[in-house]
C-alpha cells in the first residue's frame, strides 16, 4: 500500500515527531504537518483539514484529550489516533469514548510501528493505493 494523505503529527517532543515522521514516510509520500501541543493541533486541523491526526496525550498548553475533544467537535469525522507511551487503559478508554480511532505506542520498535500504522491506515482508507478517503471511490 501507499499512503499519500495529509497527516497532522502532534507531540511536544521534537524527537518523537522526527521518528514518527520517518515511520510515516515509509508508508508512502504523506504530507506531514507538525504541531507541538494540542492548541497548535486544533488550529492546524482547521487550517489544513488533514486526513489523519496522530495525537500525543501529555502535552503542555493543551493536552491531547482536550485537543481530541475540540477536533471531534469541529469535525465529527476526524480520524484521530492517540500516541501513548504507556498503555494507560483509562486514558485509552477515555479517548476511545471521545471518538479516537485507535492508539499507537510511541516506544514500539520501528518495524512494529510501521506494521501497526499500516494496519490502521488500511482500515481507514482501504488497503489499495490509499490516499485520502475521497480517492478510495475512484476505481
Amino acid at each position: 500500500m501507499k499512503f499519500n494523505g495529509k497527516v497532522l503529527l502532534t507531540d511536544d517532543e521534537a524527537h518523537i515527531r522526527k521518528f514518527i515522521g520517518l515511520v510515516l514516510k515509509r508508508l508512502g509520500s504523506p504530507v506531514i504537518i507538525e504541531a507541538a501541543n494540542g492548541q497548535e493541533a486544533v488550529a492546524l486541523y482547521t487550517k489544513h483539514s488533514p486526513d489523519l491526526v496522530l495525537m500525543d496525550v501529555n502535552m503542555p498548553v493543551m493536552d491531547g484529550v482536550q485537543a481530541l475533544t475540540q477536533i471531534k467537535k469541529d469535525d465529527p469525522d476526524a480520524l484521530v489516533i492517540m500516541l501513548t507511551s504507556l498503555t494507560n487503559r483509562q486514558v485509552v478508554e477515555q479517548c476511545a469514548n471521545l471518538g479516537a480511532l485507535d492508539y499507537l505506542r510511541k516506544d514500539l520498535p520501528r518495524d512494529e510501528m510501521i506494521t501497526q500504522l499500516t494496519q490502521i491506515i488500511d482500515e481507514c482508507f482501504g488497503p489499495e493505493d490509499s490516499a485520502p478517503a475521497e480517492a478510495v471511490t475512484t476505481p
Partner: protein
Amino acid sequence: MNPTVEPQKPDLQGRKVLIVDDDRLNLRILTRILKPEGLIIEQGYSGEDALAQYATFMPDLVLLDVVMPGISGFETCRTLKARYGDDLAPVIFITAKSDAEDVVEGLAAGGVDYLPKPFRGREAMARLRVHLQNRRLNEDQKKLVSQLSSANSAKNKLLGMVAHDLRNPLATVRGLAEFLKDDGKEGKLTADQIDLVDNIYSVSQSMLEMVNELLDLSVIESGELKIHPKPVSLSEVLERSVTLNNINAAKKGSHIELKNVDLPAQLNIDGPKIKQVVDNLITNAIKFSPPNSSVTVEASQTAKECTVAVLDHGPGIPEGEMHKLFKDFSQTSVAPTAGEKSTGLGLAICRKIVEAHGGTIRADNRAGGGCTFMFSIPQPV
C-alpha cells in the same frame, strides 16, 4: 528518609503511667514507688475515670484495679482494647495475691501482667520497667516500619518516574538508529559507520529493555499490577509474538517455530500482559541459546488449564539454580550467548503476571538437552 532509631534508654524519664484504683491508699503507695523513677503519673478512681483519662492522657502504661465500683477493671480493659486495639498501652492489673483465676481472666481481657497486693516496691518497678521498655520497642518498630514503607514507596515512585521519562528518548534513539542503518534509504553508510550505528542500536535496545523491566517492577511493587481480562485468542497472541520475535532472532541466525497449538478459540486473559510473558520466554530462549538455534513454541489444553511451552536448545539450567529463576534481580550462572544484557527481572515479572491470572510458571531441563519454560492459565469453570 532517615530511619535511625534512638538507642534504647534504660531510664523511664517522662513515660506516662495511669494508675486506677478506688482505694486512695493504694494509689498513694504506688505513686510513691513510681515517682522517683521520673514517671509522669495520673490517677483515676474508677473504670469510667480510666476510659475518660486514657483518651486525654494517652498513657504508656495502665495500672488497673480489678474490683471497683461501677465497671470492673476487666470490663474497662476490654473496652479499652476494643477502642485502641493493638495500639493500647500495656495494662497491668492490680490483684489480691491469691486470685489465680483473676489473673487468667485479666490476661484474657487484654492485660499483659498483674501486680499482686500488697505491693513490693522493687518487684512493682521491675514489672513496670519490662512493659514500658517493650512498649517503647514496639513504638520504635512501628515508626521504623512506617519510615521504611514510605521510603520504599518513594523509591518505587522515583523508579517509575525515571524509567518513564527515559523511555521515550531511548525509543527514539533506537528508532532513529534503525532508520540510519536501514539499507541506505536515508543515505549510504560506510561499513565503519554501520558498525557505529549498530552499536548505538544495540545499546539503546538493551537500555530500553532494562528501563521497561524497571518500570514493570515499580508498578508491580507498588501493588498496581492489575489484570484486565477479556476474551482473547491466545493462539493469535502466540502467532504475533512469534512473528515479531523472529525478526530479532534472525539477527542471530535463530528461528522460532510455532507448532502443535491446541487452544480454545478464546480465553479470558489480559492479552498484552500475557504477550509480555510469551515475549519474555521467547527472548530468553534466543538469548541463552547458541546462534543458529531453533526455538519451539507449543500450546496445549486440558479440561482444567491451557499451557504454553517454550522449548530451547540452550545449555539448560544448572543443577541447584532452578530456585533462582523466578526471583527479582536474580541471575543464574548461565550467560547470554551473544553479549545480550539481562536485568534478572524478566522472569520475576512473568511469574507475577501469570500468578495474577491464577496460573503457574515453571521450567525444566529436558533429558535430550535444552530446557522448557511453560506457564499454565486455568480454564474458566
